[in-house]
Structure formats: structure tokens, C-alpha cells
């Protein structure tokens, strides 16, 4: 017989080879369907064909003969004592009632191994499988664990070859039996075999469907708690394939508490295993808020950040960064990721060679950045981000500017650091390159605005903007067409720049004043138009009241320069400023009183202010609880009253006295008035800039004992 001529050693070598290729399969992340494990099988088959076909003349006859001899070979291997040369024994082994087959299967492993050797060498296993399937299905459900084990091993064998695999996956009963066997067995080997079977079947659509329909998902999820690494590997890979290609799998995995079992697996140390696991988490949590919360509840953020910090395998870092990106839009996960050191960990991967990893990390950092303004240890990240401002990639720029804008918001330490490592120059270049792209321009300008105020190097930054030719570019951003968020940020930046006296002339030369005045007029008209309705007007998400306040505030600081003062007054702005004193917005009152205070230093402007009837609203504002408002109001009144009669001045001074006494002694220092009690006429020396943030009144109520009093 042909099989007997077969070199057994060759066969066992093949078996050995086959066994060794068990674990070397690719995880199949991109598509489970493409990873076939047939290669070694077809190799064998190809060899076999070469040996046998030359001996037979008629193809159809060959088929019949081949079947006979194959069946004989099987029986020869399995039931050597019953073999008769040339006998037709086709029907025997498919008889379900025969216990002898089973007993033969349970023969010493030597026999079984031989049978397996021959199985490997069969070319067309489809028919064999078809006959064997019902039998094997029953055996898998047998009470005897050993039987189940052997049956599982054989089925596992059959999945190695495409033809027999197809037969298996077309039998729902077979697949269900495998699932059940996997779930119910106490034997590790059986579980491993069964998991391996399902894994093999999961590379084709029909197999996936069969597994899905027979309740494979809950069973596989349970296998995720197995102590055997190989079972874990098969289970997660199979689930991964299901999640990728089988409709309804995601829901089923969620229902089977898959997430709760998967998150703890993040503690494993095999990078490829982790890559599959994290990809599963991404598939399950994308667009599903509940899943994100379950991941959070099971310590997901810490596990994921740990991976980012400690592994180098690019694929794993990429899949993990994708999960973090998905979680980073969830308001509950955000602070947890930040607390776990997510910002620092993601920042490690911004300078590598993997473009997709860098981009994911940037998006994630951007999403997280507004929750990270109080984080420490971000120095390295900030420096890297400043470096990335040189990129031409729009996505990168959007992220880098956005992150810098958030991290410098109200954080003086970060502001100083960014300023010191050349952030101002880099941001100006980003603004120049951004052009019309608001997604870059707005955060870049906001970041510059942060850098130019309220930290130890603010003045440095204000000067740096001018030194790097930033002023003309920034003023240009106020031009048409208006994208209001950019306009609002730019107006605030100009105000900060004007705090530096050296910047006053360049700002004027760049045409800042007419642009600001026109914006102010336009925005004010808008607010007046909607004054009757209680609705506030929003344009691109910005209220026109904010533009009014911003422009007036910028003009206030610009007006400290005498030439600017003249220009501002010459644009007929005084009537508008006086009108703004009546605004219901406290800050608008403050900045308009402030700008009038500066303008009133010029006699002509002072007369105009008085002519506009500013005294009345200013008298009211004297009694304001806001120190800044009252201070400016007092100063304006004083300046416009210099020409008036002494009676008028006395009345004003009495009012001023009362109002000024209302404020803190500490606040007094800000307003360096000398008050002469005898004549009651205040002499204004200078007024310094009040704090931009409202101060709470000092909470004291002291008690003095009227006792100790020395006699002279």
C-alpha cells in the first residue's frame, strides 16, 4: 500500500513541525481573514500529489481507488487487527453504535499518533471530515473526559486544513459542541484544544457566524480568566476577530461583561497579546459611553498609561494610544488619565519615527490638556511642543497650539517655561504660517495672550513679540473677514502688548487703533440692536459684549501713550465711551471709565467728556462696590472739574471723599491720592492698574479698646 511506503519518520517530522508552528501566528489585528495557516499543509499536500498521481492513469478511477485505500489506511492505522487486504470497509467506521471505534480511539497514544500522521498526509480531507463530523460531535459531548479530550484533539487537527475546516464550520452542531466542551471541561488540555479550534474557525466569515450563533462569545469571555497563557491567547484573538468582522459581536461581548474581564489583562507582559487586548478595548469603547465608564471603573487609565510608559513595541503603543484617544473625550476618564500621569507618558512618544503614533498622542494630549492645567512635571512636554510648532503639518500644528494654549492658561510656571524656551518666536511663526486656518490661529494667539501677562517673564514676552516682527501680523488678524474667536483673542493680546511702553508706537504704526475702534463700533451696534430682546447675540460662539469689553480694554491701555490718546479721541470715540458707562456689564463700565480717565489728561478731551454729560453717570459710579470703577470714576471727575467753580469742586470732593473712604486701606495704596482734609480738594498723582481679577473685600471687623491713652 502506498501509505506503507510512506516514510513514517518524514511524517512525524511534519507533525513535529506542525506542532511548533502553533504560537507563531500573527495576531491578525488588521484583518483576521487574511491570516491563513494553511501554508504548511499545502506544502505537504503538494508533495503528496507529486508522489501519487503518477501511478494512476484514469482520474475518476483514481478517485475511487484513493478513497478505498485511504479508508483502509485509516482502519489500518486504527484497527490493525481487522484489516483485510483489498476489502471494502467504507461503512464500518461511520456506524454510530460501535463502541469499538471509541475504544480504538482510546488506544495507546502510539496508535493515535500514527493515525494523526496519516491524517496530515491526506489530500482531500473534506470527505473524511464530513463522515467524521457527526461522530466527533457526539464524542465531544461524551461523559468521559478522556474521550472528549481525544475528540477535541482530532477536531483540532481537522481545522488545520482548509477543506476539513470548511466542513467543520458548516456544522453548527459541531461548533456548538466545541463551545460547550470548552466551557464545561475541567481539563486544561481540552480547553486549550477547544479554544484553538474556535481560533482556527474565526478566520472565516462562516466560522465567525457559527461561533457567534452557538453562544461562543460568553464562553470565550469566560476563558479570559483562564490561568493558561495559550487559552488566553486563543480566546482574545478569537474575540478580536469576532469584534472586527462579526456583526453583533460588540454588543454580545459587552453583555457578557467582556470589558470587565479584559481590562485586568492589561497587566500581562506579552506585547503582542497586549496589542490585541487593547485593540479589543478600542473596538468596544469607540462611541460607547457606557463601555468607557466600565473601563474607567476597572482601572483602565492606569493600565493603559503604564503600557505607554514601559513598552517599545510600536504596534502596541499605537493601539494603546487609540484607546486613550477614545477615552480622552469622556469627561470622567479625562481626569483619571491625567492623574495617572497620562500627559507625561504620551509626551514621551512625540519625537519617534512612527507618524501615526505621534499624531494619536497629540490628539489625545489636546483632548486632555484642559484638565491638566495644574499638573506638574510637564516641562519636557512643553519643550517638545514648542519644537513641534515648526511643523508644516496642519494637524500637528492644531494640536500643539491647542495644548500649549490650555497648559499656559492660568499657570504661571508653564508660561515662564514656554517663554524661556523660545515659545513666543515659535508661536509667531505658527500664526504667520496659519494664515486663514482658524484652528491654528486661535489657539496660537490665545497662547501668546497667556504668555504676555501675569507671570515673571510677561514683560520679556511682550518685548519678544515686537522683536520677532509679530506686531504687524497680529494687528492684521483684526481685519476682515471676522472669525470672532480669533478677533477676541487678538484684541486681548494687543491689550497685553500695549502694557509694554516700547510697543505703543509699533502698535499705532500697524494701524491697531482704527481697527479696534471700528470693531468696537460694529460690536456695540450689534448689542444695541438686540438690546430689546433678552437674548444675547452670539457670533461664532462669541458674544458681542465680549468684543466691546475687549476693544475698550485694549484702547484703555493704548491710551496711556499721548500720541495714541490723541488718535483715539480724534475718532469720535468719546461719546461712545460715555455711553458705555451705562452698560449693565461691570467690566465694560470699568474699562470705559478707565479709557476716559486716560483721555481726560488732555484738556480738550476732558472738555469733550464733560460736554457729553459724563458727570452724571460718573457720580453714580463713585459709589460702586468695584474699586477699579470707583477709582477711575473719581479720577475722571477730578480731571474734568479742574476748570469749574470752587463750589462745584467742593461738592465733587465731598463725594470723592466719601466714596474713596469706602475702600480698603490696602486698596488705597493703588490710588495715590493726597487728601487734604482742611480744604477737601484731592490731588491726583497717578493711578495704577487695578487687578484684572476682582478682589474679595478684606474680611475683617476689628475691635479696639478705648482705654490706653497716654497723658503728656
Amino acid at each position, binding site marked *: 500500500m502506498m501509505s506503507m511506503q510512506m516514510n513514517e519518520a518524514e511524517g512525524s517530522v511534519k507533525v513535529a513541525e506542525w506542532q511548533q508552528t502553533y504560537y507563531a501566528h500573527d495576531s491578525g489585528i488588521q484583518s483576521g481573514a487574511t491570516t491563513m495557516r494553511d501554508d504548511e499543509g499545502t506544502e505537504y499536500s503538494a508533495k503528496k500529489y507529486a508522489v501519487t498521481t503518477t501511478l494512476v492513469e484514469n482520474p475518476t478511477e483514481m478517485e475511487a481507488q484513493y478513497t478505498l485505500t485511504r479508508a483502509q489506511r485509516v482502519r489500518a492505522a486504527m484497527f490493525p487487527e481487522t484489516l483485510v487486504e483489498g476489502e471494502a470497509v467504507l461503512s464500518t467506521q461511520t456506524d454510530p453504535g460501535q463502541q469499538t471505534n471509541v475504544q480504538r480511539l482510546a488506544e495507546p497514544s502510539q496508535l493515535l499518533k500514527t493515525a494523526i500522521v496519516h491524517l496530515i498526509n491526506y489530500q482531500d480531507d473534506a470527505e473524511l471530515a464530513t463522515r467524521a463530523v457527526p461522530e466527533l460531535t457526539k464524542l465531544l459531548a461524551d461523559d468521559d473526559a478522556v474521550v472528549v479530550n481525544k475528540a477535541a484533539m482530532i477536531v483540532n487537527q481537522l481545522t488545520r486544513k482548509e477543506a476539513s475546516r470548511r466542513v467543520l464550520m458548516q456544522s453548527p452542531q459541531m461548533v456548538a459542541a466545541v463551545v460547550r466542551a470548552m466551557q464545561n471541561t475541567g481539563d486544561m488540555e481540552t480547553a486549550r484544544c477547544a479554544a484553538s479550534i474556535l481560533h482556527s474557525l474565526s478566520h472565516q466569515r462562516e466560522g465567525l457566524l457559527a461561533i457567534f450563533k452557538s453562544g461562543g462569545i460568553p464562553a470565550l469571555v469566560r476563558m479570559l480568566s483562564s490561568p493558561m497563557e495559550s487559552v488566553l491567547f486563543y480566546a482574545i484573538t478569537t474575540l478580536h476577530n469576532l469584534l472586527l468582522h462579526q456583526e453583533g459581536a460588540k454588543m454580545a461581548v459587552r453583555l457578557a461583561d467582556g470589558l470587565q474581564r479584559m481590562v485586568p489583562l492589561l497587566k500581562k507582559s506579552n506585547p503582542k497579546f497586549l496589542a490585541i487586548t487593547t485593540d479589543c478595548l478600542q473596538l468596544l469603547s469607540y462611541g460607547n459611553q457606557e463601555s468607557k465608564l466600565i473601563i474607567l471603573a476597572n482601572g483602565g487609565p492606569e493600565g493603559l498609561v503604564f503600557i505607554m510608559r514601559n513598552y517599545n513595541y510600536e504596534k502596541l503603543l499605537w493601539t494603546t494610544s487609540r484607546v486613550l484617544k477614545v477615552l480622552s473625550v469622556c469627561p470622567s476618564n479625562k481626569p483619571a488619565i491625567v492623574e495617572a500621569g497620562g500627559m507625561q507618558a504620551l509626551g514621551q512618544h512625540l519625537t519617534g519615527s512612527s507618524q501615526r503614533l505621534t499624531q494619536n498622542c497629540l490628539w489625545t494630549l489636546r483632548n486632555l490638556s484642559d484638565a491638566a492645567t495644574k499638573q506638574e512635571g510637564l516641562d519636557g512636554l512643553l519643550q517638545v511642543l514648542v519644537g513641534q510648532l515648526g511643523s508644516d503639518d496642519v494637524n500637528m500644528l492644531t494640536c500643539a497650539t491647542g495644548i500649549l494654549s490650555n497648559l499656559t492658561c492660568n499657570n504661571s510656571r508653564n508660561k515662564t517655561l514656554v517663554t524661556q524656551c523660545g515659545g513666543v518666536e515659535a508661536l509667531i511663526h505658527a500664526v504667520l504660517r496659519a494664515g486663514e486656518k482658524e484652528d491654528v490661529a486661535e489657539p496660537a494667539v490665545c497662547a501668546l495672550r497667556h504668555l504676555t501677562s501675569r507671570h515673571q517673564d510677561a514683560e520679556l514676552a511682550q518685548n519678544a513679540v515686537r522683536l520677532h516682527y509679530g506686531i504687524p501680523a497680529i494687528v492684521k488678524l483684526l481685519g476682515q473677514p471676522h472669525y470672532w474667536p480669533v478677533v477676541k483673542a487678538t484684541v486681548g493680546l494687543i491689550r497685553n502688548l500695549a502694557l509694554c511702553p516700547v510697543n505703543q508706537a509699533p502698535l499705532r504704526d500697524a494701524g491697531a487703533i482704527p481697527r479696534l475702534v471700528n470693531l468696537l463700533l460694529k460690536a456695540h451696534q450689534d448689542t444695541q440692536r438686540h438690546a430689546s430682546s433678552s437674548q444675547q447675540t452670539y457670533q461664532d460662539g462669541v458674544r458681542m459684549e465680549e468684543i466691546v469689553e475687549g476693544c475698550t480694554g485694549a484702547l484703555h491701555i493704548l491710551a496711556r501713550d499721548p500720541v495714541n490718546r490723541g488718535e483715539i479721541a480724534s475718532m469720535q470715540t468719546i461719546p461712545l465711551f460715555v455711553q458705555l458707562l451705562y452698560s449693565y456689564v461691570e467690566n465694560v463700565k470699568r474699562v470705559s471709565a478707565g479709557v476716559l480717565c486716560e483721555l481726560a489728561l488732555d484738556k480738550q478731551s476732558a472738555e469733550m467728556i464733560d460736554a457729553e454729560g459724563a458727570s452724571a453717570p460718573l457720580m453714580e459710579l463713585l459709589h460702586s462696590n468695584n474699586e477699579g470703577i470707583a477709582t477711575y470714576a473719581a479720577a475722571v471727575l477730578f480731571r474734568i472739574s479742574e476748570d469749574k467753580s470752587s463750589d462745584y469742586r467742593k461738592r465733587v470732593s465731598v463725594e470723592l471723599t*466719601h466714596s474713596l*473712604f469706602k*475702600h480698603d*486701606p490696602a486698596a488705597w495704596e493703588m490710588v495715590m491720592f493726597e487728601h487734604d482734609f482742611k480744604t477737601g480738594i484731592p490731588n491726583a498723582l497717578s493711578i495704577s492698574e487695578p487687578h484684572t481679577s476682582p478682589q474679595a473685600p478684606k474680611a*475683617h*471687623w476689628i475691635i479696639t479698646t478705648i*482705654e*490706653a491713652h497716654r497723658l503728656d
Partner: protein
Amino acid sequence: MSSFLSQLHFQLSCALQQRIEICKLRQGEHLILGFSIGGGIDQDPGQNPFSEDKSDKGIYVTRVTPGGPAEVAGLMMGDKVMQVNGWDMTMVTHDQARKRLTKKNEDIVRLLVTRKSLEQAVRHSMM
């Protein structure tokens, strides 16, 4: 009828205020009056335990030393000090109030005070 009411109102307004004359007591090198004050336009009025209106920044008597000149003169804890020797005390800082009460060349300090209990008594009688 209306004139009677306005007369009554006038008397009641007067009764709301009390005049206290404190004779400073010499103790060695010190002239003492024997009471403590709180309040002032530079103070946080919300912390004044004696005032009814919590935005009232006036000067209030917080403590009266038992047996001291102030107690003898009839000053009571919780009195609001309206005037001292003719000087207005309703719109002064805490320190100004202290200074006005401790002028070296004055031995007698005449206070005009308002007392809550008086107000309450009046209101009660009007019901």
C-alpha cells in the same frame, strides 16, 4: 389728627437716641473710658454682631468694662455711636473713630447713641 401723629413721630425719633456723657478716668498715666468699639467704613460690616442691617458700617459698642466710666454713664453693649462731641461718627474709618474718642485735651466725651432696645420698645408701643 395728622399733626398729632407727626408730633408723636418727632418725640419717638428723639427717644430713639440717647445722650451719654462719659467722664474719662485718670489711672496713673492713662485716661480710660472703659469700653470697646467695632465698625467703620473700612471694615466688613457683615461681621458686626450687633447691627440689624448687615451693610451698616457704623461704629458700635462691643464691650463695656464693668464699673468703668462708660458703664457708669449708661453706655450699653450694642449701642451705635452716632456722634462724639459733635463730630459725625456714621461715615468714619475705624481708626478715625478711635482718634475722636481719645483726644488728649478732652476730659468729657459726649456721645449720641442709638439703641436697638429703644427702637424695639417704640415699635412695640406703636402696635
